[in-house]
């Protein structure tokens, strides 16, 4: 059992796939393949006869891989999802990081460990980036709404920008809501009244 591990990464996003491959290359001795397109996924994976398949939990094509877990699948050797057998902590970490792995039954855990640790770390980073991006977008959206609400108040009440913002903030505090929520309610209401 000293032969190289064959690892298949299923990932449509080229940059993400490359990042995972680079990280894995540095840390373990394995043959890596990336599959980007989804058509005929199970067959393509089977053609590589991999020891490990890595795929994003959020990828809907994951269900195609479930076929491989059936003994009668094209791989002709049982594939099991590691999570049911590997150490509990590792499985949990993988699920939380958003990675699911399928491994050939009987693969020694110590051979799998480095591959998984690196992948989990990468996925965590992706997830963090995704969350940050979403938060930045939301903050931008909120800024826009607050600006519009300020504009409405300034026009309706003849007050300056600072006073308009102070009014929004005070209302938010009184009602136990966020400034952005109050601003949004105001913008919606004024749209209805127009």
């Amino acid at each position: 059992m000293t032969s190289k591990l064959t690892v298949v990464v299923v990932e449509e996003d080229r940059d993400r796939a490359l990042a995972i491959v680079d990280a894995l290359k540095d840390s373990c001795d394995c043959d890596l393949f990336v599959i980007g397109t989804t058509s005929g996924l199970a067959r393509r994976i089977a053609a590589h006869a991999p020891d490990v398949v890595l795929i994003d939990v959020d990828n809907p094509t994951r269900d195609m891989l479930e076929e491989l877990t059936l003994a009668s699948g094209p791989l002709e050797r049982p594939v099991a999802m590691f999570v049911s057998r590997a150490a509990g902590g590792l499985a949990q970490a993988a699920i939380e990081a958003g990675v699911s792995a399928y491994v050939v039954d009987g693969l020694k855990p110590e051979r799998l460990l480095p591959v998984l640790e690196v992948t989990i770390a990468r996925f965590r980073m992706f997830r963090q980036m995704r969350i940050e991006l979403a938060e930045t977008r939301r903050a931008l959206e909120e800024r826009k709404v607050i600006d519009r609400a300020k504009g409405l108040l300034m026009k309706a009440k003849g007050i300056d920008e600072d006073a308009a913002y102070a009014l929004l903030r005070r209302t938010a505090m009184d009602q136990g809501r966020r400034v952005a929520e109050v601003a949004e309610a105001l913008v919606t209401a004024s749209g209805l009244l127009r």
Partner: protein
Amino acid sequence: MRPVPLPVAYMPLVDAAPLIIAQEMGFAEAEGIALDLVAAPSWSSVRDMLAFGRVDAAHLLSPVPVAMAMGLGGVSTPVSAVSVLSVNGNVIGVGRALEQALRAQGFGFDFADARAAAAALAAVAEGPIVFGVPFPFSMHVELLRYWVEHTALAGCGIDIRTVPPPLMAQALAEGDVDAFCVGEPWGSVAVEQGAGALLLPGRAIWAFAPEKVLAVRTDWAETEPHLLGRLMRAVWKAGRWLSHPESRTTTAEILSRPDWLGVPAEVIDRALSARFIISGRAEQRQVAGFVGFHQGAASFPWRSQARWIGDRLALAQGLPRGAARDLGAAVFRSDLYRAHMAETDADLPGASEKLEGAIRHPTAIASQKGQLSLLQDAFFDGRIFDPSRID
């Protein structure tokens, strides 16, 4: 009092309605719970979220808990099906190439006769027909296999491949699959996209097939009996509400929202009203009882239904059938259903097993309140599944 939050995973499908309606129409709140519904990208993801504790309950394909108990498919955390969320609700369809071949043969697409549809397909097939299904452990697969085994299609055979329903139209276009069996709204979506035509509703093969179940981890059911009871009652009340014809329009409107299915209400309404547009030629077909949430004790988890599923999985995988039936029966928890539904006005059947396929007409049965009748549950070929006999 603040409602207790309860995370539940689901796939965005018409038959997730009992969970969505329980939350949206206040049935959950009335039981003192708030369903935190988590939409999943795949069935494997639903199963894993449940198995690893990300959620406490899930909308699950009825064969999945049975397969898990049999050790198939990797994850083997003990899971219980505490009620049936829906019966029937699948459609079988064909891609453009097969549709044209069938029309050339003069096939009428009656959307009713399973035997005739199989004979017509067998006549035009040039080898095994490749069917796309959402998941390897699903009623879709079981219905297809049963249909093929007992019709002219046995001669040419079929291949079954897993294709996520949102990608089915693409798989048909690229020739990866020739035909499909999916849950609504995906069949109607395929018709809308011009990808193919609908051939049969699932119930033309088995008239009362348990499609989705409400599943929980078995240990959670034991440690949180009160929460489980509230969840089951909220979902049962939602199912009863769904069974009223006047709820239909509201249901289609709610499900169509981007937060839930994000599919036009008109397309969702086809499954709820059982009036289908089956092809690009706007041919309409009506199916009584296309999908059921309540009538005929639809939510009762019959142990015999699970024995049938276990039996079929064992046959396909070459495993001992008796053991598989018993494992299945232990997973469909009619005992928990009885315990938790006692305080509702649900009428409970006297028995927990029945001869599957024996009911040809709505039939009154022995029940606690004496008001229960079961609906037709026949298989298309008239066979009867006896849960206590292996032949």
